[in-house]
């Protein structure tokens, strides 16, 4: 939304407050051009960029096939914000704390970008370059997002840390999806975090460490500590590290336990 002659506007929930502090822009309303669809196909779900958070949160195919996205979209802002704000806007604004992005990363989301000349597809992980900057070209519009359907049956956990219970800006977001077999061996793991690294990201080193292992509390403790080490390695020691490190260890432990279906563990 930063370059080009026209800034696309849908819900305006990020763009309109931003315009209060910047030069007036020419806007192009894309909220009613038919890109608010949700299509469930064989092994993927395609979501139009202008689908609102309320729409995602109430859609049955999202609930069934992309449960973490369903949960994330229900935690965005307030009800009024969810009624206007869109998943495409959440992506293109590229805030480090965007609620839906960690959930989308779990499902290997790809973004479809269109211009008058061509259509291209790129992974969401590659699309977000740094805080508030994406790879979108001035003549491109984010058209849709294609997500791989969740592994079945996967256990999932989405944790959003805020300073209050509702209408909060996420201070840390964790999304975890795990598949385990009857012997408690982890068959697949997807882990994504927001507000831990400069941009929301999958934590592949952590995923690789978990796959093939038997679930124990020691394993999850090690994993949570590894997450904190990775955060410090990537983001460096910052003023917030003394707070964020123990919080990330605690939340990662909780998210892994929740996704593994282990109840009653209070960190």
């Amino acid at each position: 939304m930063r370059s080009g002659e026209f800034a696309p506007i849908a819900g305006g929930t990020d763009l309109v407050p931003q315009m209060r502090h910047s030069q007036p822009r020419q806007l192009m309303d894309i909220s009613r051009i038919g890109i608010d669809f949700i299509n469930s196909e064989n092994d993927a779900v395609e979501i139009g960029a202008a689908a609102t958070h309320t729409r995602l949160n109430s859609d049955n195919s999202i609930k069934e096939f992309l449960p973490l996205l369903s949960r994330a979209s229900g935690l965005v802002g307030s009800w009024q914000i969810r009624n206007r704000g869109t998943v495409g806007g959440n992506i293109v604004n590229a805030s480090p704390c965007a609620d839906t992005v960690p959930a989308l990363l779990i499902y290997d989301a790809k973004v479809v970008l269109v211009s008058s000349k061509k259509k291209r597809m790129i992974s969401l992980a590659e699309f977000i370059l740094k805080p508030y900057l994406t790879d979108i070209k001035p003549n491109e519009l984010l058209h849709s997002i294609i997500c791989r359907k969740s592994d079945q049956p996967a256990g999932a956990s989405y944790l959003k840390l805020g300073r209050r219970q509702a209408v909060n800006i996420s201070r840390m977001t964790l999304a975890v999806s795990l598949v385990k077999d009857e012997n408690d061996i982890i068959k697949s793991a997807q882990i994504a975090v927001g507000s831990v690294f400069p941009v929301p990201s999958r934590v592949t080193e952590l995923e690789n460490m978990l796959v093939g292992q038997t679930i124990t509390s020691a394993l999850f403790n090690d994993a949570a500590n590894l997450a904190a080490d990775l955060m410090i390695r990537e983001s460096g020691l910052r003023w917030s590290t003394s707070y964020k490190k123990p919080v990330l260890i605690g939340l990662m432990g909780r998210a892994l336990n929740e996704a593994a279906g282990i109840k009653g563990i209070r960190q």
Partner: protein
Amino acid sequence: MSNSFEMIVPARFRLNGISFEKDIPISWTLLRFLREGLGYTGTKCGCEIGECGVCTILFNGQAVNACLVMAPQIDGANIWTIEGVAPLAANKLHPIQQAFIECDAVHCGFCSPGMVMTTIALFMQNKKPDDEQIKRALAGNLCRCTGYSQIIEAVRLAATLIAEGDLKKFNSNNTAGKS
């Protein structure tokens, strides 16, 4: 924000059940257009960044912050504001407004129009919300007098007073003019 060379665009929309055809300055938010363009000052202006909810209106049946909608985006839409809530020509209040008065849920009154609009949207989805559902729905409406418990009580009371017909007019997928 605007200057004397402000560009305008024509828009057709329904507001509180009445069809309008108006020229709208392109840089205005819906909040500004309602208040300054049409003189509908019942919708209040608070934070203007979508956090306080005092400008909540119904946009095609959904509660939204009027400060975050660019006014030209209402072309083809169906808008309800607090001015349209009480029944026309009946000289009485809507049951939700009545409940707010009975429960002393109006302190300074600045948040009340937004609270009432969000409550209408809540009842349109859920006639018998529990306390958690009420709180979750109203999370985007701040009350600086902090009279939240009376407001929640008022919503609870309104749920017992409200009849099907009291919500009918707000429930409109049929948009006006071109779409």
